[in-house]
């Protein structure tokens, strides 16, 4: 904006304020003018602990009430989509780790699925099962991060320590599998980089059999907690129709009553033969989304248990050419990431580098509905709402 425009805007604002102060003074001549200014603009973030990264919101507030919330992102924009174009297909996988950095495995998975679809490669059964196990472990760890941090945001500090205790174990499993804890890079086009280490399945299965009791612990701290309910019930209500309209996916749409899960709707890998429930709730508020996520964690444990029992020795990599040169076509592949529908739109021009690789990030699209959810709520509810959308700014900005 040019200087003239700024000064003009300042003048307008000053005139506006003076006008309002005058009317307020006329209405209540006794009152203190300082507190009579009804609306004000408030910067929320980018450096604010509850924004889970670098999200800036420009709020228009009337006292504590939010009249308007305008998200402003891009602080973490690293041009990932541009980078994909300049590197070969396998070199793109590590970049995906850095998008949703609390759920790297699902990002790897979606990227690989897109390229595999383009190539028409089939994945060996063992690799499919291990991918599903990794995905679900990742979903657990992502939901645990969400549970812990959104609890802290609302003043419930205790669940954080429990949630991160379990997450630590999951990260240990990842470390044992691929050497990394966060930026996993744990899948390859056509399969997996490594087979499981000895004893890994036993340790995971032990952890999984403990998990339901631990989820009970979290629920004991929150589900019937009066303060938790006061902060979440009826906050950010959205109907299933509106969810579709806004493109909201994942636990948000399921919390509003639509049992739509890509693992069930358009199964990839071996999800169609697995027995699990898609949990839903009816009210579509923050509390229901919390319940849905907790139920999803129980379902993930169930899925992992089934996959572990189905594991048999076999190949972990499909027949993929050494140099990956897909046909000059385009493809869209998506999976159910912990946050919602994560899709990759891949355009090939027949060379060994993607001509265009676009990411459809669930966090970015879900964040779009935040102004709609926040309108009319209090500033302190905004913290609950950012938590309930479960955004990761690495994925929003890419």
């Amino acid at each position, binding site marked *: 904006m040019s200087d003239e425009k700024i000064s003009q805007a300042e003048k307008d604002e000053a005139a506006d304020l003076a006008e309002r102060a005058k009317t307020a003074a006329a209405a209540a001549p006794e009152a203190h003018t300082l507190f009579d200014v009804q609306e004000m603009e408030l910067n929320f973030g980018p450096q604010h602990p509850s924004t889970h990264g670098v999200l800036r919101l420009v709020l228009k507030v009337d006292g504590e009430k939010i009249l308007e919330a305008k998200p402003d992102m891009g602080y973490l924009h690293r041009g990932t989509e541009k980078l994909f174009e300049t590197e070969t297909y396998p070199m793109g996988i590590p970049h995906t780790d850095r998008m949703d950095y609390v759920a790297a495995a699902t990002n790897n998975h979606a990227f690989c699925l897109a390229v595999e679809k383009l190539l028409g490669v089939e994945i060996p059964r063992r690799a499919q099962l291990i991918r599903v196990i990794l995905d679900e472990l990742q979903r657990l760890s992502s939901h645990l991060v969400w549970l812990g941090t959104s609890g802290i945001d609302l003043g419930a500090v205790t669940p954080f320590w429990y949630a991160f205790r379990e997450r630590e174990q999951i990260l240990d499993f990842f470390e044992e599998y691929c050497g990394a804890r966060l930026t996993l890079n744990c899948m390859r086009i056509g399969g997996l980089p490594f087979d499981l280490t000895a004893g890994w399945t036993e340790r995971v299965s032990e952890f999984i059999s403990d998990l339901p009791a631990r989820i009970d612990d979290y629920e004991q701290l929150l589900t019937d907690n009066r303060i938790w309910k006061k902060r979440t019930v009826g906050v950010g209500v959205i109907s299933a129709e509106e969810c579709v309209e806004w493109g909201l996916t994942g636990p948000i749409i399921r919390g509003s009553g639509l049992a*739509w899960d890509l693992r069930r709707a358009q199964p990839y890998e071996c999800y169609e033969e697995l027995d699990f429930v898609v949990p839903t709730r009816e009210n579509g508020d923050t509390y229901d989304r919390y319940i849905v996520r907790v139920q999803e964690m129980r379902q993930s444990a169930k899925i992992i248990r089934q996959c572990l029992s189905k594991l048999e020795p076999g190949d972990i990599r499909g027949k993929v050419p050494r140099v990956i040169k897909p046909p000059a076509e385009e493809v869209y592949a998506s999976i159910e990431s912990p946050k919602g529908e994560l899709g990759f739109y891949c355009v090939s021009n027949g060379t060994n580098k993607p001509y265009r690789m676009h990411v459809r990030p669930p966090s970015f699209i879900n964040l779009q509905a935040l102004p709609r959810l926040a309108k009319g709520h209090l500033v302190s509810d905004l913290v609950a709402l950012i938590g309930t959308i479960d955004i990761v700014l690495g994925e929003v900005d890419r």
Partner: protein
Amino acid sequence: MTDAEKAPAEEKKPRPEATDASGHPWVQAMRASLPDTIVSAKEFAGQVTVVVQKDQIARAARHLKDEQDFKYCVDVTAVDWKTRTPRFEVVYHFYSFSKNARIRVKCAVADGEEVPSIAAVFLSANWCERETWDMFGIKFSGHPDLRRILTWEGFNGFPLRKDFPLEGIDTGAAVYPEEWPEGGGPSKGDTNRKVVS
């Protein structure tokens, strides 16, 4: 290793190929409702792609939403084809819950041309179109709030265009618009920058 990998690859079923999809029921329904809209249609890996006239895109989106039950706009993005005319392709993905299927709609746009916005049809397309404007410089006419979204207002250049240098441009762009011209890419006097193709 290479031989062992190559041998079964040759035996394997041929790679998937694109087929003409003009006989597909969705395409036919669209053609019946909006004649002279569809340019071409193809199917690859079970995914239907319909290319429509640029000016008809909002009507096509409305048709898909109201008459064919594609109620969820998954994504809007673009591809810069650089050497083709028209240069860009705007790509839309829609999903239908009742059909449990996706459709891809595309339209070709020349540099500087405007595309009718579908933000009034699908709320979720709002930010996607903003991102496409920000990254490619494709304007959407009728968009309620077409501002940059990932970069900042005043940034000169459109990062996902193929002629935008990978190492970025001097962000003095916002301060010296006369030196960093509108439309992106390296400035005229700059010979030290690689152009990614």
